């Protein structure tokens, strides 16, 4: 059971004079129960790749399949759910419950089934229907609104949940809530998170795809990227602060430290490498 992309190529504007190659030869596998992090600089093809995963764009080369069935706009419905950037700007209904029920109702659920699915989804994002269901989506805080929008996708019970910059623009509490929510969703779905900074999800990810100019710059297990964070720089990215300090010290010490995201563990190895601890 997996969402599988093989040798994907996508070019914008093929029929026009301005042709932009957005993706070339990108492969990716998302297993059920996995969190895959896609990082890359602005314009590296992250959002295009996510739209291909969701069946919203049909790649010109390569193949996309969901659980071994070729992905089409039709087969993606209900199987793959996409949370857009600034997802809360798409909230529209008079109540939170109506808004979150819209997706399942649109997929053919009865009003009762749709409302039940919406209640479960609202529970999952920490906005219980008893408290939030009858409120206007526009009365929610930034973080709550973002979570309500994610609930709207979860309510369709997709096997794969994709999220484009899910924490951008939120404050610390909002970011933490969305991060914990997406990490927990993994129990029920394969999760793909796209972000321009690795800081927040790297420690929770199973696998990471680093994109640069539409191509795969690095693909592998998250712990391997943490152990050797050089691909960040190669792809024009900035490594998380704690890793960056370790890389700078390792460069100058001339040997490789066992890099870690944990600040306390990093402090020990840094103090050892620079002679403050023996």
């Amino acid at each position, binding site marked *: 059971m997996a969402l599988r992309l093989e040798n994907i190529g996508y070019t914008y504007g093929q029929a026009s004079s301005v042709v932009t190659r957005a993706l070339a030869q990108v492969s990716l596998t998302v297993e059920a129960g996995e969190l895959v992090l896609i990082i890359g*600089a*602005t*314009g590296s093809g992250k959002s295009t790749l996510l739209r291909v995963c969701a069946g919203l764009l049909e790649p010109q080369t390569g193949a996309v399949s969901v659980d071994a069935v070729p992905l089409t706009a039709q087969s993606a419905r209900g199987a793959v759910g996409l949370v857009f950037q600034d997802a809360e700007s798409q909230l529209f209904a008079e109540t939170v419950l109506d808004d979150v029920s819209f997706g399942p109702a649109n997929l053919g659920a009865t009003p009762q089934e749709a409302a039940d699915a919406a209640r479960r989804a609202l529970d999952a994002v920490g906005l219980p229907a008893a408290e939030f269901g009858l409120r206007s989506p526009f009365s929610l*805080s*930034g*973080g709550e609104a973002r979570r309500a929008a994610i609930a709207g996708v979860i309510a369709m019970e997709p096997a794969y949940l994709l999220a484009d910059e899910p924490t*951008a*623009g*939120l*404050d*610390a*509490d*909002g*970011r*933490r809530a969305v991060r914990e929510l997406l990490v927990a969703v993994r129990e029920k779905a394969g999760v793909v998170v796209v972000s*321009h*900074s690795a*800081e927040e999800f790297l420690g929770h990810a199973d696998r990471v795809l680093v994109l640069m100019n539409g191509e795969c710059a690095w693909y592998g297990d998250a712990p391997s990227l943490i152990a050797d964070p050089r691909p960040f720089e190669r792809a*024009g*990215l*900035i490594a*998380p*602060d*704690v890793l*960056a*300090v370790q890389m*700078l*010290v390792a460069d*100058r010490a001339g040997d490789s430290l066992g890099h870690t*995201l944990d*600040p*306390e563990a*990093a*402090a*020990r190895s*840094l*103090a050892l490498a*620079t002679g*403050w*601890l023996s």
Partner: protein
Amino acid sequence: MIRFDNVGFAYGSGESSVPALEGVTLSVAPGESIGVLGANGSGKSTLARLANGLLLPQTGRVTVEGIDTSDPARVRDVRTTVGMVFQRPDDQIVATSVEDDVAFGPENLGLPRDQIRERVDDAIAAVGLTGLERREPHLLSGGQKQRLAIAGALAMRPRYLVFDEPTSMLDPHGRREVRDVIARLTREGRGVLLVTHDLLEAAACRRVVVLRAGRVAFGGESATLVRDPRLMTSLGLEEPDLSRLVRALGGLGVPLDGVGYTPSEVAEALWR
């Protein structure tokens, strides 16, 4: 000096009135930078908009170089003294080339041609966009667009700049570019009020104000805040990994007094 004296502001009126700021007192001098932190809805953006008269206080007073922002005869003086840069540069870019966009403000002041040229060139140079004068703004990267928005504000030659989350839509490189520009503007003598979600970005300012529910919950040296995990938690802020690292290094006996909170400064200090 920009001065807030016991400032209060509420949106709406009567029963549906929602207080956004209450009893806020602070000041920014030229050459000084203040970071403003707080959760969504804490009043940060309201504070930014009060600083240049986009909003007027309902209680208390905001003055800019002694001018009351509520004085209708002085609106233009206030706006040209305090420049404003918003979160989304796209909302602030109006023209079809970099130089035309920067020229928009000075042209509106009715300045002679050569003075406009000089201001535009200076502002573009100050944000490091020299060479891109003819570029269409939509072809710029996020960081370049935000620097263009800053240049547009700078062309008005303001003594103060107010930034409302200028880096929150940018990738890490864009963020670094914009931070560097803000730091340089402060060094060159402008007063800066920087509203941000990013604790380390705010801490690059000498002083920090933390708003909670419209009130100043902390005001003081940024070093005091970044070094005190309990204080950060009590203010609803998440301790950045880099300050956890610095604290852990301190606990292991590494002297890090006065070290700035960037990876290169921390790495450098380890070799001292």
